[in-house]
């Protein structure tokens, strides 16, 4: 087995970095940055992920194909997310009017039929 041991010291440094990043993400959540919050949270999460993968999971010394497999998985998820949300984002109100929380002015013309009160 090719000796690829990473020293204990490195592990502890990485652990400290992960803790710091967790603190950053929790603190930054309380600051109102509008859409920036989600973006920052994702950036921090990705950096933590990269740290864990390269050091804790030894992908630093991993083969090219192992890295390729992981990147392919992440790209597939990104593709799924991008195209579904792009479909949602570009739905044209002329062909698609969601009831829930939609344009308040549009009262559904065909009222859902309330049950008829029983005849006394």
């Amino acid at each position, binding site marked *: 087995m090719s000796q690829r041991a990473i020293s204990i010291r490195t592990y502890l440094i990485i652990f400290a970095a992960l803790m710091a990043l967790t603190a950053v993400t929790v603190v930054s959540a309380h600051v109102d940055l509008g859409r920036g919050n989600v973006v920052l949270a994702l950036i921090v999460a990705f950096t933590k992920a990269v740290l864990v993968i390269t050091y804790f999971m030894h992908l630093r010394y991993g083969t090219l194909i192992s890295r390729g497999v992981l990147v392919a998985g992440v790209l597939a998820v990104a593709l799924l997310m991008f195209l579904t949300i792009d479909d949602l984002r570009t739905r*044209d109100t*002329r*062909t*698609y*009017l*969601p*009831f*829930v929380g*939609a344009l308040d002015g549009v009262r*559904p*013309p*065909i*009222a*859902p*039929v*309330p*049950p*008829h009160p*029983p*005849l006394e």
Partner: protein
Amino acid sequence: MIGRFSLFPEQASTVAGQIDAIYFFLVAVSAVFSLAIAAAIVVFAVRFRRSKERQVIPTWEGLLSLELTWTIIPFLITLVMFFWGARVFITLRTPPENALQVYVVGKQWMWKVQHVEGKREINELHVPVGRPVKLVMTSEDVIHSFFVPAFRVKQDAVPGRYTSLWFEASKAGEYHLFCAEYCGGQHSRMIGRVIAMEPAEFQRWLSGSTGTTGNPSSMVSAGQQLFEQLGCATCHQENSGARGPNLAGLFNKQVALLDGRSVVADEAYLRESILNPQAAVVAGYQPIMPTFKGLVSEEGLLQLITYIKSLQAADAAPDAAPAVKTHATLQGSEEQG
């Protein structure tokens, strides 16, 4: 026309011609490529068939130029298909402003249509020729799909939102209406007719009332027409296997109900059973009758009741409560799986 065998559907809307043009282009491309491949296979198989004496010397294992040609040319052809199809699709999906608006609600196994002027139809849609019609559709339960082959238009009716579809009938006549998205037990019976009429005739139909309330005979005939139109006949039939109780000779008779009560079938009972069928279900029948509240006007109710009163028992049929049905032909949609 409905019912006449033909190998090609009618072109009854303005967009049908354009879609058929794309279709023929695609058929032509497919025919050319398929026949070319098939011919090449047959010719090569025959000309280079295996024979003992011929020494086989494979001469070439790849020509980049040939590979590029049969990559780029098919790609260009598909690009033509894409742009042409996209252009027509965009016109299909942008309803014109002056379109006549009609509301359509898909409900498990029927199409409920309501014109802006208040006229309502079930499984039927009357439209004027020569004027764009925009259908605003939704569904009360599962996904249905409004499909008129003669107009070449289709759009799913999705619960929880409106989807819309537009067409402009170019030829008067009766055309099939199908539900194209699988929606359960009677998906194949959720069909109907789209009747394209000349604008004048359409106006007359739209404003014409369904028979005067005055003389009873027209009331009975109007009632019968409403009875057919609302689809009551599909359940309330003479034969014993029907899904709904037999109405012949029912008026002023004692009726045993599911919950043990027994009432006299007077006008109030008939009216209540039409508007709120769940309130008094006849013993031995599934509570599957949909409510018609909001679908039939007061005037229509009176005509229906007059019609039911006019139905005499066919013969001295024993009026005992019908035996409890052992095998429910229509699975009650209420019990959850």
